[in-house]
């Protein structure tokens, strides 16, 4: 038997994150780190490596899923506002908002540039013979290579900014002793 009054809190409220926000946050985290690691690793593989053709397929598939999750997440943020920030000082709030904004921006820039790379010559975005999204246009090689550079730099930026975001959460937990970290780990 569940305790009386027990209910899974799906939606965010004034005080706490709901499980949907928490789930989307940590799933995005795991997928982003995995995509980053696989992305860096796969471009260094030798031609005879058994994973030479496998990893790019996984990277494209997972990238498309994360892009979809990010869109859902942005929609959820608009529909169901997160609880207010716990930071008191205006500059901390500004920093936190800025970091969140940059993270969302990078989470959008990565799938867009990735899509442009793979569809540059008019072929659809596909993974494991599964067509995910048709090409909308083609690009000259120099533009595609710029998309490639932006993709790589955005990947590094995402990991670095996410690290700052994580360190800030740890600072709130251990130095400020507030619930910033805890409330992203469990709902109320």
């Amino acid at each position: 038997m569940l305790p009386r009054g027990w209910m899974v809190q799906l939606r965010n409220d004034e005080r706490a994150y709901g499980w949907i926000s928490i789930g989307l946050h940590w799933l995005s985290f795991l997928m982003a780190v995995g995509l980053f690691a696989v992305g860096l690793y796969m471009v260094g593989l030798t031609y005879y490596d058994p994973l030479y053709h496998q990893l790019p397929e996984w990277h494209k598939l997972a990238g498309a899923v994360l892009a979809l999750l990010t869109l859902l997440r942005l929609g959820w943020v608009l529909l169901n506002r997160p609880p207010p920030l716990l930071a008191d000082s205006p500059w901390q709030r500004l920093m936190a908002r800025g970091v969140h904004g940059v993270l969302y921006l990078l989470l959008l820039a990565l799938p867009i540039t990735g899509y442009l790379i793979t569809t540059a010559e008019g072929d659809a975005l596909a993974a494991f013979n599964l067509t995910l999204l048709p090409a909308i246009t083609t690009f000259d090689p120099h533009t595609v290579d710029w998309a490639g550079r932006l993709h790589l730099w955005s990947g590094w930026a995402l990991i670095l900014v996410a690290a700052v975001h994580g360190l800030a959460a740890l600072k709130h937990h251990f130095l400020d002793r507030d619930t910033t970290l805890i409330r992203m780990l469990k709902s109320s």
Partner: protein
Amino acid sequence: MNVKPYAIVSAGLLALLLAASLPARAAETYVMDTKGSHAFIQFKIQHLGFSWLLGRFNDFEGQFVLDEDNPEHSSTKVTIDVASVDSNHAERDKHLRGKDFFQVDKFPEASFVSTKIEKTGEETAKITGDFTLKGVTKPITLDAKYVGGGKDPWGGFRQGFEATTQIRLKDFNIDYNLGPAAEVADIYISVEGIRQ
């Protein structure tokens, strides 16, 4: 000093006489018809030893000077935009442009400049020249063959050649391991030149 008008006229006449006494067919310059895409640089290389992978360079320009009376005075020069490499696969082409292969951000251009042309038959010649790719310049020799030439239907005059050669990737600093069957690329060139 005062130059008399008749001195100028006679100098002009002398120049005309000199020009007329030159061989009837002087060297003529032809520009490769890359605009109309009647010029191609293609390559093929083995895939694992199982099949051929074909590709081409879409963007290049070149010209040749044709001296039919003194073929050894003929010459040619081609400049290739390496980033235009096209193997009909976006991700492979991106890989080819990267540092494992052509490294086009550092070495955007490849070129061939002939140094010696030797006729080997009625319609064949060996064209030796300096080929530059990925910052490495080495002599290579093309086996060239005359295809045809004459007036085109639009008021111009054209001549066409085809040529083949082989390039060892390692010679040009491309040492990504594609396997023992794929160390040499076959090059096929077909160009039509428009007389200037």
